[in-house]
């Protein structure tokens, strides 16, 4: 039986906005949580798996993220951003907390090196939706290499900006500024391209 089958029949929630889903979650509707999971769990899991390089830990993070939205839906404010970015931010923060423990860091670095040797993928292969993939890829490709690498190591590598500075052999202040400038540059490009969710 697939996940979607377990999660019950399709109903009006499949057409509901993310904000409406969270309202329903606030009213203890598990079907709203199920629909939220259906829409976003794949992205949340993929990000956790990418950061943690461990499927068991990644699943724990996904579970924690969805239990958190169930337990405290009021912390999501639709005026401040999309539900996906909120869930991913929760996932990223929790994953980073985990990987910054020394033991998990050692394990992760081993796996990360192995993974890079095998796959060698970069940020341009991480875009999430075919419908916006081209725009996101364009926005990434337009970034100066230094900004792109800094964002890549910080967000998808889970490194602090100080670690990024060490890895790139650049001053900490420079890395900090480049990450901010790169994010702004990407946002402007995505807004120009009319990518939804970026305003």
């Amino acid at each position, binding site marked *: 039986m697939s996940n979607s089958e377990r999660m*019950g029949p399709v109903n009006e929630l499949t057409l509901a906005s993310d904000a409406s889903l969270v309202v329903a979650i606030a009213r203890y509707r598990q079907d709203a949580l199920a629909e939220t999971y259906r829409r976003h*769990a*794949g992205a949340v*899991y*993929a*990000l956790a798996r990418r950061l943690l390089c461990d499927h068991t830990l990644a699943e724990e993070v996904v579970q924690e993220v969805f239990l958190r939205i169930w337990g405290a*839906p009021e912390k999501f404010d639709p005026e401040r951003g999309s539900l996906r970015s909120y869930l991913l931010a929760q996932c990223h923060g929790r994953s*980073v907390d985990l990987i910054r423990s020394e033991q998990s860091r050692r394990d992760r670095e081993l796996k990360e090196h192995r993974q890079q040797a095998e796959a060698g993928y970069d940020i341009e292969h991480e875009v999430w939706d075919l419908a916006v993939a081209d725009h996101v890829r364009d926005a*990434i490709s337009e970034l100066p290499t230094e900004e792109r690498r800094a964002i890549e190591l910080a967000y998808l590598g889970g490194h602090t900006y100080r670690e990024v500075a060490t890895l790139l052999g650049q001053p900490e202040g420079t890395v900090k500024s480049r990450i901010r400038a790169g994010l702004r540059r990407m946002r402007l490009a995505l807004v120009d391209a009319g990518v939804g969710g970026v305003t």
Partner: protein
Amino acid sequence: MRAELRHADLEELLGVYALDAVDGEERLAVEQHLPTCARCRAEVEEHREVAALLAHTGAPAPEGLWDRIIEALDDDHGDFSLPPVLPFPTMAPPQPVSTRHRWRTRANAVLLAAAAAVIVVLGVQVEQQDDRLDDMSNLLALDALEQAYQTAESRPGSDVVQLTSFDGQIDAQAVITHDGTGYLRASSLPRLPEGRTYQLWGDAGDQRVSLGSLGRSPEVASFGVSDQFEGLAITEEAEPGVIVSQQPVLAYGPLPQ
């Protein structure tokens, strides 16, 4: 102890903060600053929206993960006591269409055809009184069904039907527009346990016609009305609902003739 950061210093940290790439005192300083500065909060959210686009959807989440989440959910909110029920009322035979309310003729054929088909899960919203809803009140404006209900309620020619239990402990209100579209607001129905659902019925005298399963804790649902119906009734059933109900009526409201 690090000297207090200037606003410009904090702004420089917003990008790395949004990516969880800052820790220690700098992270703490940003977290303390954000509640006081709407502009910086907005910038962090903008950065996070961009970062979210960098994440990969990947394949669906692993099998079994959803089951574990469900098992972990706190189910303390299912405790309640249903009020006494009243027997399903005996109805007079349907009257000729010409004497009925104007919205009924148009909706009749559609409804009777639908009655023989599978039960449709209706649009459902929940209106359970709960503290955490207080913080979500700004979102209620987004509820399309609630807006539809209010629009129907204010539309000239709409009828309001009150559904009540025998002891008045539970009630629900329906609005039916001139074209036979109905909206049910089940404001005081207690939350049902896992595996149970409320179901809305059209009372056609000698039979009940399912108008849809309402879920465990409904708020607003839409449905269609036939001129065969004398009233609306709500029962409790096993999920996902039944074609023929053997259960007593929890709440009932006569339709205007």
